[in-house]
């Protein structure tokens, strides 16, 4: 509608109707004013916005929505100004974006996508210098990664705080993982600090580097190479206001990772997303194999026997991917693969209890084994998402439990196919 009106205005065919117009001039002949659309919306019409109206007639909006403002100096061909940028502030290092400290619907939608897995691999912002509030030459420089989820977590906590934000190029990866991959590194901090113009705008400002970046950043080298004060900030962005108020000091509670139910829960959708194709292929294999028997191949058997096995498998997979993280402290064992075996048994038995039409005991056992193998395998993959599993431990657990998972899957297949021929 708006586009059409603009097109008509350009052609000079459209003139603003009367104040409180009846909408007779609207294209399409539709009534223009619903109950939610009071006449005052015609702000461009004579009388509607008072005597102070100085806009030329072409610029007014008639009964539609007001046209977007004229292009500003920061709008350049080929670039887009991101919605979280509130304004650009002139300074010795050029025009620096001041970012909002309130997350909006778009940010939350993007975060939800990244959590599910959609757009997660390219959810990043441009590295460089940003600001919140009105930072001076001594305001803290908060260093962050260019994964937008990390950046949003940071700026969302900076309401009422004037600070510089130095965003590194971590290839769109979060702080801790980037530090592990050495893209959040001493070199990157030094290079980005030099290139961003930080020395021009804030020569004495201390760098606040997230503690979880310590895997990749040697603080003493940063200080030495930049000749600037630098400290490790708290682990959670939520602790930053307290950290800044306390003169850049953090208590032990700010320096320890936690792994609460909520922290575990938000990690599960992406695990499910990453497992989707494997689940699909195994599901296809289940139906393909289920039709085999003494009768040769039967499609009706493929589905008749296939469905209960499929549901048991899917329950097991979900038990490993979602159930294990959620029930982590309740499941017995320390190795995640072990916890997964229990979750798989629980999920597989539940599935069979609800849906196992015509299955023999041997077939039920095969389904249970498959559920346990699947759950253990995917629970093992959750090690990489936890903040407490050591690489040595993960390798040890894999050497011990992957043979168990493979055996369970193999026994399941033998029992299942054998049962088909024994029917």
């Amino acid at each position, binding site marked *: 509608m708006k586009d059409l009106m603009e097109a008509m205005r350009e052609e000079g065919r459209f003139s603003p109707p009367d104040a409180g117009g009846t909408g007779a001039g609207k294209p399409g002949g539709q009534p223009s004013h619903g109950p939610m659309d009071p006449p005052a919306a015609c702000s461009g019409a004579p009388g509607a916005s008072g005597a102070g109206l100085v806009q030329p007639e072409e610029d007014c909006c008639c009964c539609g929505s007001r046209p977007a403002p004229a292009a500003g100096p920061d709008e350049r061909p080929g670039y887009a100004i991101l919605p979280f940028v509130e304004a650009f502030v002139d300074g010795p290092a050029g025009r620096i974006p001041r970012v909002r400290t309130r997350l909006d619907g778009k940010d939350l939608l993007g975060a939800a996508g990244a959590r599910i897995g959609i757009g997660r691999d390219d959810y990043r912002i441009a590295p460089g210098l940003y600001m919140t509030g009105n930072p001076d030459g001594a305001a803290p420089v908060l260093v962050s990664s260019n994964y937008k989820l990390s950046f949003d977590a940071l700026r969302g906590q900076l309401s009422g705080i004037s600070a510089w934000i130095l965003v590194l190029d971590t290839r769109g990866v979060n702080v*801790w993982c980037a530090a592990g991959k050495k893209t959040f590194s001493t070199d990157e901090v030094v290079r980005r600090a030099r290139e961003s113009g930080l020395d021009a705008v804030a020569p004495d400002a201390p760098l606040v580097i997230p503690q979880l970046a310590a895997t990749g950043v040697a603080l003493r080298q940063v200080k030495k190479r930049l000749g600037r004060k630098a400290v490790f900030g708290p682990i959670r962005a939520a602790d930053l206001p307290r950290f800044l108020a306390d003169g850049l000091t953090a208590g032990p509670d700010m320096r320890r990772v936690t792994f609460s139910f909520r922290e575990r829960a938000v990690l599960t959708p992406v695990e499910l997303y990453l497992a989707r194709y494997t689940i699909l292929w195994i599901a296809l294999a289940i139906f393909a194999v289920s039709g085999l028997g003494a009768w040769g191949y039967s499609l009706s058997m493929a589905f008749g026997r296939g469905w209960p096995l499929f549901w048991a498998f899917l329950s097991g997979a979900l038990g490993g991917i979602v159930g294990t993280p959620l029930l982590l402290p309740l499941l017995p064992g320390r190795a995640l693969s072990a916890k997964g075996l229990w979750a798989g048994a629980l999920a597989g038995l539940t599935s069979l209890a609800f849906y196992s039409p015509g299955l023999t005991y041997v077939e039920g056992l095969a389904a249970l084994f498959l559920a346990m193998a699947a759950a253990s395998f995917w629970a093992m993959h959750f090690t990489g998402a936890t903040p407490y599993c*050591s*690489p040595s431990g993960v390798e040890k657990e894999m050497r011990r439990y992957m043979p168990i998972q493979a055996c369970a899957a193999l026994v399941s297949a033998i029992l299942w196919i054998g049962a088909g021929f024994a029917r």
Partner: protein
Amino acid sequence: MRDFRYLPGTATLALDRARCVGCGMCVTVCPQGALAMEEGEGGKAVIADLDGCMECGACATNCPAKAVTVRPGVGCASYIIQVWLKGRDKASCGPDCC
């Protein structure tokens, strides 16, 4: 981590007391509280909770005296499978990992 305990006796964290200068940097950066400082003047670092160590390597990176060592690695099953299949050089965390 206090809430969750992983496999005991596997962490490769080691501390050379003779080299430790007592700066406390390892204690600051450890997200698990695996390291602690001795009480009193001239206290050195001690390993307070070896099994709590997740081998992130923050302490070793930030030790000015090379007193703390740990075998660095990625505690991620997908990555380790790739190392087994393709070798350490070609393995990558890729999009399937952290």
